[in-house]
């Protein structure tokens, strides 16, 4: 049963990826990623700042430092002669924030995962454009240290997102570099939220539910994640530096939330196949 569901999800994502492409251009794409089947995996650590608002807890915006961990896996599939690639992206963060006057303090944390498929074009030498769809989900919390019966807010959401990438491979002197920018935006989804003045006691102790799962779309939850990275060879390793801009917002049940994160990232990239380690200098290794 589970296998069938997974297949259905894959087919759906594939169809969405195709829907976002100009199918008339397909015959013009002569290159193929299938022969290499290289997997690119990256781990990144990030330091930045976040601005958070949750009117269930306070009308004030809380700001402070935030730490991030980003893990990404990307590889080509065999579909459409290798023009479809798959990506798994996990972005986690934890922050300690304070109110404008520093009287209120808050802890927050979240983990977001996205699993998607992209159609690949190579419009120019070294340039790869990718468009596709993701199944995304997130869990998180925000805890205010001095609130009474509304001390914390939970976050849980799922969404179908549009995803665009531009990857450009170039040389700086004798150094092969890869620059990349990715934009992901949820288009349709659902999120958990208490109602305007509803207590968690009613929800979890009494089982009183009141529109606690709401349909989301860009009109009531305009959100987007930008991820820009540069891969630089350093000895035998490939170092990745980047910038993350993660904008999560919602306005449902008369409750407004936002978490605007900006972070600088640094980490490493590994390229490999399931059979043998790949040569990181190979030309088709440009994710």
């Amino acid at each position, binding site marked *: 049963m589970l296998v069938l569901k997974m297949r259905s999800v894959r087919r759906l994502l594939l169809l969405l990826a195709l829907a976002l492409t100009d199918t008339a251009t397909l015959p013009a794409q002569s290159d193929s990623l299938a022969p290499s089947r290289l997997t690119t995996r990256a781990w990144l650590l990030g330091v930045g700042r976040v601005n958070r608002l949750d009117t269930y807890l306070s009308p004030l915006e809380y700001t402070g430092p935030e730490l991030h961990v980003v893990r990404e896996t990307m590889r080509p599939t065999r579909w459409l002669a290798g023009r479809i690639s798959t990506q798994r992206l996990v972005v986690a963060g934890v922050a300690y924030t304070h109110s404008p006057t520093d009287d*209120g303090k808050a802890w927050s944390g979240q983990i977001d995962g996205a699993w998607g498929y992209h159609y690949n*074009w190579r419009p120019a030498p070294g340039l790869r*454009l990718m468009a596709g769809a993701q199944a995304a989900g997130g869990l998180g919390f925000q805890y205010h240290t001095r*609130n*009474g019966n509304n001390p914390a807010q939970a976050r849980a959401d799922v969404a179908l997102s549009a995803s665009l990438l531009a990857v450009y491979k170039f040389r700086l002197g004798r150094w092969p570099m890869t620059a990349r920018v990715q*934009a992901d*935006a949820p288009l349709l989804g659902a999120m958990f939220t208490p109602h305007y003045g509803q207590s968690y*006691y009613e929800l979890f102790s009494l089982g*009183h539910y*009141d529109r606690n799962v709401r349909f989301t779309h860009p009109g009531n939850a305009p959100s987007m994640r930008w991820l820009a990275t540069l891969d630089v060879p350093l000895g035998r390793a490939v170092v990745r530096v980047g910038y993350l801009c993660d904008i999560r917002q919602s306005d449902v049940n008369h409750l407004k939330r936002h978490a605007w994160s900006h972070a600088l990232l640094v980490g490493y990239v590994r390229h490999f196949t399931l059979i043998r380690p790949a040569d990181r200098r190979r030309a088709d290794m440009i994710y």
Partner: protein
Amino acid sequence: MKTLVSSLTALLTALVCLTSCITEDVPDNSPAGNFEALWRTLDEHYCFFREKGEEYGLDWSAVGAEYRDAVVPGMSSEQLFEVMAAMLAELRDGHVNLSAAHDVARYGAWFDDYPANYSDSLERIYLGRSEDYAEAAGLQYRVLDDNIGYLRCESFNTTPGDGNLNEIMRRLAVCDGLIVDIRHNGGGMLTAAQKLASLFVNERTLGGYMSHKTGPGHDDFSEPEPIWIEPFEALRWQKPVAVLTNRRTYSAANSFTMFVKGLPRVAVVGDRTGGGAGMPFTSELPNGWSVRFSACPMYDRDGQCTESGVDPDLEVDITAADYARGVDTIIETARAWLRQAAADGLD
């Protein structure tokens, strides 16, 4: 190719445009701004405007207009605090507080205007010395000399465990009746109140109703939904119970009274409870002051709001003569009712 790049650029631009900012309009950190923030927070979130309007004519817009005139540029923090505290007192709600570094504004007429009906000196006479009574999960208890069990619950800040309650019931099982003294119990967790009430029901019992705001309007409320009291799964009390209350029986203790009043074998003895039937939420002002207010209203099983308290079945005050003699009139009244109830076979 050109079309493709143009399409992608347009799509990216559209996605960026979709990410419009969601923010909250908050007044500035000035005396007038903080006053407006406080008035608006209560206006949009406070849950008893209708009840208090019917009870004593509260008009929050008129209150705001009256006190807004007292806010002037350059006034000190203490002066602003006084104006805000006076405005909040118009709500006549013990759950409404404004907390600054130098003071906490609070409304206390709900107990200051009435007899205390409680004395820790008298409590010491009945409970005895530390070695005379047992204590588990914040509950103090002993057997009085007429074989009446006495259980003192001064707070619902701790939820007793199943083991605690089972042992208390086992040790008091020989008693002919039980006094549950929640005078001066200022509340705590509703789950603790439900747990203690679970000792006195043998089947799933309606304890009352609870609602919440669904929007910023004064009448934006959800349909009240039932609060069920599930029977305790181990030893439960099957004999008469007297619940002692006074005007400082408040918040979760007021809810406990609401849960048990009207149950078979239960009598509420003492004074009317202080109320506090709105679960309080917390917010804050641009200057950092914290504000607490009633947010989720509760109603008894007849649908009546208990914000202004729950009446006892046997109304009695501690007399001056009894204070002087070291006698707690309310406990003695409860003991007499329990003995009579036991004699009448009310078990």
